[in-house]
């Protein structure tokens, strides 16, 4: 039997007003300081209304110092505090920063690697490749590295320097760093404000995938929507690609939990009224706010280093199995994006440049061509945006746009978004052999636990194509290519 739905109190009916084909507004009401703005198609609305995510958009709109609307991307679903798919910016004068607006998995993100290989070349070797990846990258509940336990001083270096630390240790190449959001190192990270508890959790988790929806996927370019952009990103039809999706592991979870406790007190101290305790926050300028941002940056850098090290083992796995050198493989980093983060950024608001703290919780930065924070390689194309789908369907590569910069603080969606709860997914998978079903579709799956694979069946997710089509249609990102999976390792 399925678990009963979680009913806490009657759901307030949130009114939506249609703005255009892809935009819906929650009018400002009651304690809201601004309106809500949801990016979605008409077909998505009934599902969105089923949970409490719209109420969460309205709740975020009550927080002090919010600039522009409280937004949600088309992959919106019920989170805790902020909705998943939520974007909100706060000014530095009265605005707040909220650990619940970033989430427990600080700098959970996605990176995409290209190769010189074509799909047919690796077709007979996919199973071997997946096995090598599974062997070389610890996955699953509480995965840890027995070969790599960091001392406190080293861990602090990781948190200060992020992906650059990993490259310095020989995990990857210097040119990788130019292809990571923020260069793989968020400025202002201070490991001294990260608790011993958090460091205990992180010390043997660097270079591990973890569990849940995290994965490494070998796939190929199945469709190209914009040839010029695809070429500029180094993509061609039939090309083998690799996606890595993971975050800051237990270290990030602990930083979030530690600072929620701090923020619960801070909210009372600074008189911030909270519609939900999970929204607890502190003024950005307060000591509590500054400390959280410094600790969050430290955890984010740990996550960048994590994905960098996994990249190294992906390269090694390919070299081992295919017996090819790095030059022939051409396993280069296209880009790495964070989709759970708060960033201090400059944006034009009512014609004036303002520095704001943009919270992206299950949302991806999507900066346009020519933006100073976009690396030189992508000045002409705009920043690559990587949107993973479920393990049975496809993922997308997009680029950021000027429209996104003007309307959503340069943000877009981050993934498919769940449609079934995990329990419902496991029930739907009962009596089925998901791994064999996937193999019949030509996708090799290896996972640490059966439940974690069953939870991730395609039916459990919205079709990511619908999500991406809304962001493309609304102009907040632009479709470049569709990638299909060949082999996946899951936590």
């Amino acid at each position: 039997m399925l678990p009963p739905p979680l009913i806490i109190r009657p759901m307030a009916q949130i009114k939506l007003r249609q703005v255009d084909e892809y935009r819906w507004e929650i009018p400002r009401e009651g304690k809201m300081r601004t309106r809500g703005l949801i990016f979605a198609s008409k077909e998505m609305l009934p599902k969105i209304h089923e949970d409490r995510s719209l109420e969460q958009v309205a709740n975020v709109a009550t927080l002090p110092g919010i600039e522009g609307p409280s937004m949600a991307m088309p992959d919106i679903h019920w989170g805790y505090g902020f909705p998943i798919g939520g974007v909100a910016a706060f000014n530095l004068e009265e605005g707040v920063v909220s650990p619940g607006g970033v989430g427990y998995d600080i700098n959970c993100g996605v990176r995409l690697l290209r190769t010189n290989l074509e799909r047919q070349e690796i077709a007979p070797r996919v199973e071997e490749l997946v096995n090598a990846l599974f062997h070389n990258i610890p996955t699953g509940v509480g995965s840890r590295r027995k070969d790599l336990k960091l001392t406190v001083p080293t861990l602090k270096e990781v948190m200060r320097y992020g992906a650059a630390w990993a490259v310095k240790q020989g995990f990857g190449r210097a040119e990788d760093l130019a292809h990571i959001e923020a260069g793989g190192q968020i400025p202002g990270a201070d490991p001294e404000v990260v608790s011993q508890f958090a460091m205990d959790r992180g010390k043997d988790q660097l270079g591990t995938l973890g569990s849940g929806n995290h994965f490494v996927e070998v796939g190929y370019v199945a469709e190209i929507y914009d040839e010029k952009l695809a070429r500029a990103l180094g993509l061609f039809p039939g090309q083998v690609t690799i996606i890595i999706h993971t975050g800051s592991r237990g270290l990030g979870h602990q930083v979030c939990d530690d600072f929620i406790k701090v923020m619960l007190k801070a909210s009372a101290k600074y008189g911030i009224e909270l519609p939900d305790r999970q929204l607890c926050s502190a003024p950005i300028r307060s000591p509590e706010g500054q400390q959280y941002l410094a600790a969050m940056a430290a955890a984010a850098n740990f996550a960048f280093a994590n994905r960098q090290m996994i990249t190294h083992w992906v390269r090694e796995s390919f070299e081992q199995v295919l017996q090819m050198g790095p030059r022939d493989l051409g396993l280069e980093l296209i880009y790495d994006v964070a989709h759970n983060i708060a960033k201090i950024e400059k944006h034009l608001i009512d014609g004036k440049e303002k520095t704001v703290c943009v919270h992206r919780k299950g949302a991806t930065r999507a900066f346009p061509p020519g933006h100073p924070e976009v690396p030189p390689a992508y000045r002409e194309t705009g920043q690559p945006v990587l949107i993973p789908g479920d393990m049975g369907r496809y993922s997308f590569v997009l680029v950021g746009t000027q429209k996104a910069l003007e309307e959503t603080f340069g943000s877009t969606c981050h993934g498919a978004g769940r449609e079934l709860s995990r329990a419902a997914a496991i029930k739907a998978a009962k009596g089925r052999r998901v791994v064999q079903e996937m193999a019949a579709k030509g996708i090799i799956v290896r996972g640490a636990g059966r439940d974690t694979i069953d939870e991730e069946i395609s039916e459990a997710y919205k079709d990511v194509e619908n999500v991406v089509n809304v962001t493309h249609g609304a102009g907040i990102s632009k479709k470049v290519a569709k990638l299909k999976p060949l082999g996946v390792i899951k936590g």
Partner: protein
Amino acid sequence: MAAATPRQYRRPYRFLSHTADVGLRIRGETLEALFANAARALTATMVDRRRLRGTLTRDITVEAPDREALLVAWLNHLLYLYDVEGFLGRDFIITHLTPERLQARALGDIYDPQRHIAKTAVKAATYHHLDITRVPGGWQATVILDL
């Protein structure tokens, strides 16, 4: 779906569906039982609890500003123990409980993929819709876990 039968109603904990995450509804005749059952429910989310041995003990003290926050702090401390040393509690004895402080002994096992069946990894217990209330015959709590 059938309504909860009286037998189910007495279960120490139930899982509630939440799109991305999982909710726990926990019951206990006393607050001590409620906190112990919450910990059992957390373990049961991560592994098949029945396969755990209860041979190792861990003494735990957590503090928080109020009873609800204490429940979250307790569960998150158990997640910390799991991350750091793979410890999973099977049974829990609450030795001291006030709204701001909990002392407990956990009896459990170190996770071993050869012996244990992993279920879902839990990132954290959250404060979202967190609630502890008195109900006829005891206490009830609701906690949402971030998975």
